């Protein structure tokens, strides 16, 4: 709203598809960026849609030089802002983006419900089930910003009791600017969190004075997700916390955020933040005059490309001392296995010019750069310790360790590595170290004899857990595939 970008709120995947066309037309007509804003449940939903023929624009790229339009410098910015205000006023007057009314039958005069996006969908489903669809005026706001001017007049003049249900911030409420509006600002709708059907139902009951439906409460619980069996991130995390039991471990966003369950991730904020936080921790401890703890930041390879490079340059330049472990599995595992720039293949499968992480790290000025496969746990542990020694040496700074091992969700990667036949011997004391500190999903406790067992269906035979068992009870026999 304060960026003055028109926004369209789809209530379903089908509507999202249709709105992209409308948004593009609006954008072209007014020379404005237009945002289509599906919230979580629209993004995570699937629906049958019909597809039209693709429209080819067939116009060559041609840039017309016009500094008055394209250079937001102090000379032009005032006029540009006035122009933008004029465009937004014009968009607010377009009848085709005015809220859609499902009219009531007059039995509840002066009452209306206004909703947008998926919250409109959930509200509509409830009204239908309650037999209230067509009994009370119910508006779908398809463009929450700028809110249609005539609609705002209608709401203010026609209704006394007004309910607004919208994700995420109360943008419609703020524009209506009417004390009679109930919603997130008045507190009738929870000010935080997703508007699921189970959140919306009690709101409707209160607003329309309906009998309260007693719904079963979610009991909670469930299994937390964990890194896959054989995931090299697990080996890297295990080495990090073993090498530095008193360390601080800022991290980032990806599969490896699951390291929080392994005690090897202490923070996760926005992409790239882990490296800046590591530099900040170092500065804060030094400023305090005490010894600085070993700080190990972890970041995935794709996240490093996306947002880690500026933070690394800044950390090196300002002489921070910490270890950065770049977890390089050659893919974007959490979001659908898009290749990284290092792979040299674009997301659409075409060849790209590869960009190498070690080159980027060297260019940042970091004085310690080593690559290693965390599967070789003892060697990786030694490497981390030498990285720490570098950080603490007189000429030390940021030490970068690139932990390289392919993501095993890639079937080809799995086929390319050695597979060991894993077993647990009588020497297992049931100390649970491997379950609690390594947490491989293929390991579990056999309650009957108090020993750890290996689920052959889930074990990928990586052999890393051999190094984890303090009793040496986990054994690896080669032979399945060398």
């Amino acid at each position, binding site marked *: 709203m304060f960026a003055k970008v028109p926004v369209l709120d789809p209530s379903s995947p089908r509507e999202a598809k249709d709105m992209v066309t409308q948004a593009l037309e609006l954008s072209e007509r007014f020379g404005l960026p237009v945002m289509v804003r599906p919230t979580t449940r629209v993004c995570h*939903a699937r629906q049958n849609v019909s597809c039209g023929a693709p429209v080819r624009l067939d116009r060559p790229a041609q840039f017309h030089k016009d500094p008055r339009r394209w250079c937001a410098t102090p000379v032009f910015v005032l006029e540009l802002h006035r122009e933008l205000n004029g465009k937004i006023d014009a968009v607010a007057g377009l009848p085709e983006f005015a809220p859609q009314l499902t009219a009531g039958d007059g039995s509840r005069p002066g009452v209306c419900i206004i909703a947008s996006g*998926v919250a409109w969908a959930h509200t509509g489903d409830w009204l239908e089930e309650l037999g209230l669809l067509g009994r009370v005026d119910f508006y779908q706001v398809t463009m929450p910003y700028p809110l249609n001017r005539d609609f705002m007049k209608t709401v203010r003049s026609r209704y006394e009791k007004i309910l607004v249900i919208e994700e995420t911030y109360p943008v419609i409420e703020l524009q209506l600017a009417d004390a009679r509006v109930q919603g997130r600002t008045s507190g009738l709708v929870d000010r935080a969190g997703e508007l699921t*059907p189970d959140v919306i139902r009690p709101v409707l009951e209160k607003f329309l004075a309906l009998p309260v439906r007693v719904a*079963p409460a979610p009991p909670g619980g*469930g299994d937390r997700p964990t890194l896959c069996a054989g995931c090299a991130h697990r080996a890297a995390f295990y080495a990090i916390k073993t090498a530095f039991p008193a360390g601080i471990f800022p991290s980032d966003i990806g599969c490896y955020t699951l390291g929080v369950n392994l005690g090897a991730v202490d923070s996760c904020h926005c992409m790239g933040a882990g490296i800046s936080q590591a530099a900040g921790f170092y500065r804060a401890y030094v400023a305090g005059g005490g010894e600085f703890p070993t700080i190990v930041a972890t970041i995935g390879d794709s996240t490093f490309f996306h947002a880690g490079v500026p933070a690394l340059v800044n950390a090196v330049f300002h002489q921070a001392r910490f270890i950065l472990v770049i977890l390089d599995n050659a893919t974007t595992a959490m979001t659908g296995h898009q290749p990284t720039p290092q792979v040299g293949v674009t997301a659409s499968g075409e060849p790209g010019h590869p960009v190498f992480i070690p080159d980027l790290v060297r260019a940042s000025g970091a004085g310690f750069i080593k690559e290693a496969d965390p599967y070789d746990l003892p060697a990786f542990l030694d490497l981390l310790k030498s990285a720490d020694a570098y950080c603490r040496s007189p000429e030390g700074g940021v030490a970068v360790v690139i932990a390289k091992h392919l993501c095993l969700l890639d079937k080809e990667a799995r086929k390319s590595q050695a597979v060991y036949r894993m077993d647990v011997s009588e020497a297992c004391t049931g100390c649970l170290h491997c379950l609690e500190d390594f947490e491989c999903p293929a390991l579990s406790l056999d309650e009957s004899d108090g020993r750890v067992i290996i689920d052959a269906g889930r074990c990928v035979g990586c052999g890393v857990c051999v190094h984890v068992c303090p009793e040496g009870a986990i054994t690896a026999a080669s032979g399945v595939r060398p």
Partner: protein
Amino acid sequence: MKQQIIVSGLGGQGALTLTRLLAEAAAAMGLPVITSETHGMAQRGGTVISMIKVGPFRGPLIPAGEADRGLFLHPRNLAVHRFYLREGAGVFVNTATPGDYRSLDAQSLAAAQGLPPVAANLILLGYAAGRGGLFAGPDLLIEMIAARTPERFREASLKAFQLGIVTAV
């Protein structure tokens, strides 16, 4: 026609596969369908749930106490997701332990037939379809499996589904 189904399991058990098959079946029947899925963590062993809403629904989520059918790929999930089911809903659980639901030890059935553990999802689906509990009949689902499964898994997938049907009748 309206039917609201939840598919509950652990990441990697094939809850999304069942969700998509059911959605394809609804689309093939000309019914409107909308589904909601757990993403991101889906392959990493955590508790996941998908919802399939067949019929003229607007939103993708099923409210607590409204689901007509529940397919539970893991018995542990019953405690977590049963609250979504309405009174009298059809509940199908992959477990050897009988209870106030229809149980089927799909894991053991798969193992006995030389099928991989992940085939338990289609065995359970076949069982639910064989019991006549789903909006789509077994024949249509077989057609969907044949059409939508990559060739190298097709035979095993169809075998698993048939195994479920046979167990149901």
